């Protein structure tokens, strides 16, 4: 009997499990996790908008901490950081909250009991961390990929972007085009698989530890998962930012700096267009 109990505790499905059907929509436990993360973020934003003070309270300082960290990194990336700062911050916060929701008591343990195909009794958790579902991470990676391509086209023009994909000289295009295409797609898969793999591995690790040593030991792994959740959110946001800033930097190095200077002359003069870190360094 203890073996059977152990089996049911270690049960972590690789794909999100369906809870119920809402018309054509199959509602899964990871959707509930994503919805919870969104509600937490929206509630935080609402609270922040109402209680925002010039001299921050302790709670406000705590909420500002991750935002300030990311704002510092983003503002030091390129001169056009304001255009994509909201997207990168959004990535970071939604992944961070989605990862940390998985560590709350009851998430992954409270659910609907059912008998699976093998005849074993298992529990379908009501909530699953959204980033432990490949659909969620792939969705985020696709948004990031589209934005990266959008910035590439915006910076270099459609022709310039195509030229980059075809490679130079042009007679090498039949070889370079598939190579560049594979290289581009590896970004998409790398972004989504890394986040999914790390968070899902964390879920499996926690479930295994709880099954093996239910007292004290899982607490250490929960602490580790807290750090991993933060690091993975940071890595995803940083990579998305690096891809976008690289697309913009290619434009700058291609000799269009003069265009940029005229476009952003006013902001430049006001000091708002400079990366603050660069300003500090020059000072």
């Amino acid at each position, binding site marked *: 009997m203890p073996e059977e109990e152990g089996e049911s505790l270690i049960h972590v499905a690789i794909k999100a499990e369906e809870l119920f059907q809402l018309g054509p929509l199959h509602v899964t436990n990871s959707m509930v996790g994503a919805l919870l993360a969104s509600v937490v973020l929206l509630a935080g934003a609402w609270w922040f908008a109402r209680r925002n003070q010039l001299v921050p309270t302790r709670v406000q300082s705590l909420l500002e901490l991750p935002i300030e960290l990311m704002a510092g990194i983003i503002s030091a990336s390129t001169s056009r950081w304001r255009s994509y700062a909201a997207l990168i911050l959004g990535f970071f916060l939604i992944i961070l909250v989605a990862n940390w929701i998985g560590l709350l008591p009851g998430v992954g343990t409270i659910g609907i009991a059912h008998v699976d195909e093998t005849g074993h009794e298992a529990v379908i958790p009501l909530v699953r961390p959204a980033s432990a579902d490949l659909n969620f991470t792939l969705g985020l990676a696709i948004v990031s990929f589209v934005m990266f391509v959008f910035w590439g086209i915006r910076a270099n023009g459609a022709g310039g972007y195509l030229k980059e994909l075809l490679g130079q000289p042009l007679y090498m295009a039949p070889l370079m085009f598939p*190579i560049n295409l594979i290289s581009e797609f590896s970004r998409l898969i790398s972004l989504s698989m890394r986040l999914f793999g790390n968070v899902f591995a964390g879920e499996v690790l926690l479930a295994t530890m709880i099954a093996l040593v239910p007292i004290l030991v899982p607490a250490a792994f929960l602490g580790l998962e807290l750090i991993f959740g933060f690091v993975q959110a940071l890595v995803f946001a940083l990579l998305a930012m690096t891809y976008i800033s690289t697309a913009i930097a290619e434009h700058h190095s291609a000799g269009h700096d003069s265009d940029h200077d005229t476009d952003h002359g006013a902001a430049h003069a006001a000091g708002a267009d400079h990366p603050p870190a660069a300003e500090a360094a020059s000072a």
Partner: protein
Amino acid sequence: MRQDEEPARDGNDAQPAESPNWALGLDLGVRLGLSVVIGLGLGILVDNWLHTSPLFTLIGMVLGIGAAMVTIWRVARDAMRK
């Protein structure tokens, strides 16, 4: 948080400008392997479809290895531009 307040607050923090490099390094290892896997996978798919095995598997593998090399070159180029 108002946007126009950010530069002043972060102005003294020069450290973050270097942070994305470690993320790129972390990404590079995964992308090298993935490029070969994608090329090989596509080659196997085309071979299964056209019954030409192992022609496209080999072509896919070579393209995947090529994509991995191009990825290294691009990352190095972008890092040197900074």
